């Protein structure tokens, strides 16, 4: 049983489409979802299912054209929430050192130099990047850059952290390490996370709940409580019956959608 949480994000009948006339494409349709404070929601779906559209609306880079998006009960545009955003590709500013990148969100908030240095350094050390703070992004490996990216999104302690397939481009071993680090940090900070991935296993091992989306127009096919206690042993979670059961159940749901999306992708 999960503890009832205060709703932080509420999507009520949210739809978004692009283009006009015959070229009109409905990206997402009738999304209903409530995300509680401190909850980690993972979203899986076939490619082109509107995951990015959903994320853009949550990031307030885009607005639904029907339905309502609320943060802590207030319309998204007026809500006083801070959002962290980790992109699919690494998006550290190449002209700033790692430290200056992580300090960036604090800098634009006018946090005094000594304090922002201290906060940035503390987080960098937590993800094993101490000693690399004066490196430029191009001098770091892909995995290090992505960790820097995540740290930059966490350093100002946002209410919600959005992650768009952050580990998609990493090799398997690096990904495992980063998943573990992410789990540790989130558990400690009690951050609310919406995590988009195409990797079902990753969705289950990181999420409190997993959302499976349908092929375009994207809507929510099913939502499952993972129900595996934290902290999770990511090395052996695959052996748990609950995990295996979820993989089978969610894959059955996802497979149909992937197959439905595939001809559209091929054409």
């Amino acid at each position: 049983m999960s503890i009832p949480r205060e709703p932080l994000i509420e999507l009520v009948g949210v739809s978004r489409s692009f283009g006009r006339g015959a070229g009109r494409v409905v990206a997402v349709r009738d999304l209903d979802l409530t995300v509680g404070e401190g909850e980690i929601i993972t979203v899986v779906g076939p490619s082109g299912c509107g995951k990015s559209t959903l994320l853009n609306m949550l990031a307030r880079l885009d607005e639904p054209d029907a339905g309502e998006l609320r943060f802590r009960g207030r319309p998204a545009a007026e809500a006083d929430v801070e959002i962290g955003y980790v992109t699919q590709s690494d998006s550290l500013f190449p002209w700033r050192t790692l430290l200056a990148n992580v300090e960036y969100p604090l800098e634009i908030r006018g946090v005094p130099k000594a304090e922002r240095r201290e906060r940035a350094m503390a987080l960098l050390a937590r993800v094993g990047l101490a000693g690399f703070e004066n490196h430029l992004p191009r001098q770091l490996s892909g995995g290090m850059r992505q960790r820097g990216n995540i740290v930059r999104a966490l350093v100002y302690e946002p209410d919600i952290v959005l992650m768009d397939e952050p580990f998609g481009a990493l090799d398997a071993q690096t990904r495992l390490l980063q998943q573990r680090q992410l789990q540790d940090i989130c558990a400690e900070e009690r951050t609310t996370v919406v995590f988009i991935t195409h990797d079902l296993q990753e969705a289950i091992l990181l999420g409190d709940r997993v959302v499976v989306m349908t092929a375009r127009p994207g809507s929510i096919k099913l939502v499952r409580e993972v129900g595996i206690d934290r902290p999770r042993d990511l090395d052996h979670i695959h052996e748990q019956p609950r995990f295996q059961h979820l993989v089978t159940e969610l894959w059955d749901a996802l497979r149909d959608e992937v197959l439905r999306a595939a001809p559209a992708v091929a054409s």
Partner: protein
Amino acid sequence: MTRATTTARRTVTLQQRPAARVRRRRLPVWAQSLALLVVLLAVWEAFSGRLVDPFYLPAPSAIADALAESAVAGTLWANLWTTVQETAIGFLIGALAALVAGIVFGRSPRVAAVLDPFLVALNATPRVALAPLFVVWFGIGFLSKVILVITMVFFIVFYNTFQGVRSVDATYLRVATVMGASQRQIFRTVILPAATPLIVLGLKLSIPFALIGAVIGEFIASSAGLGYQIKLASNTYDTAGTMAGIFVLMVVAVLIDLVLNRIARRVLFWQPESTERTTNTL
């Protein structure tokens, strides 16, 4: 197993041998360049007056004499100073105006769209053809040269700035927006740094054109400057004097290029080292 070892050993020897040979036999690159220069000058010196009429191709020594003569007389320095001033002032004004225009246009697609045909037409006009007009409008003095330099510099810097501002990676803009940066902060901390490589490239490319503008302006009508000195010498069939002037222009262009590359490397410290060099069109 044996095969792998042999291959490995061969790779090693292949990599080591040429390197060792280089270290043993070859002079450093700069010394080789210098040696080539000496040889070329010696051949030139030997040819001139023997195989070629020195009237057409004066010997390096004759050019050096002409150079020394105008340096001692002081005319070289006065003319050099005039040309450098015209180039520098025209460059500064033109580049500054182009930076402002490039940023404004880059930030407001509407303005850019409305003014685009005018810019294309102006840019397509050979600026050299405007030079006589500038003489009529602004006189034969300093001002007409500066204006010509401005028109040469403006478009190069403008288009690069415009492109730089427009082509900022959208991901950076999104990330900064979500992190809570204001429009002003985004401009200062994301758009400007992201546009810097193209802006610097535009500035680098425009400097040789600034020099061209000044010299052409002086060719057309003037009473001072290196262009004036070259024209004066050629009018009196003084090929050695002409070539001395050309040599000074070459030296100026190379020096500017060296300084610029140094500054560019400073500003763009975050970019990977590139072997790209400014193409000098002089």
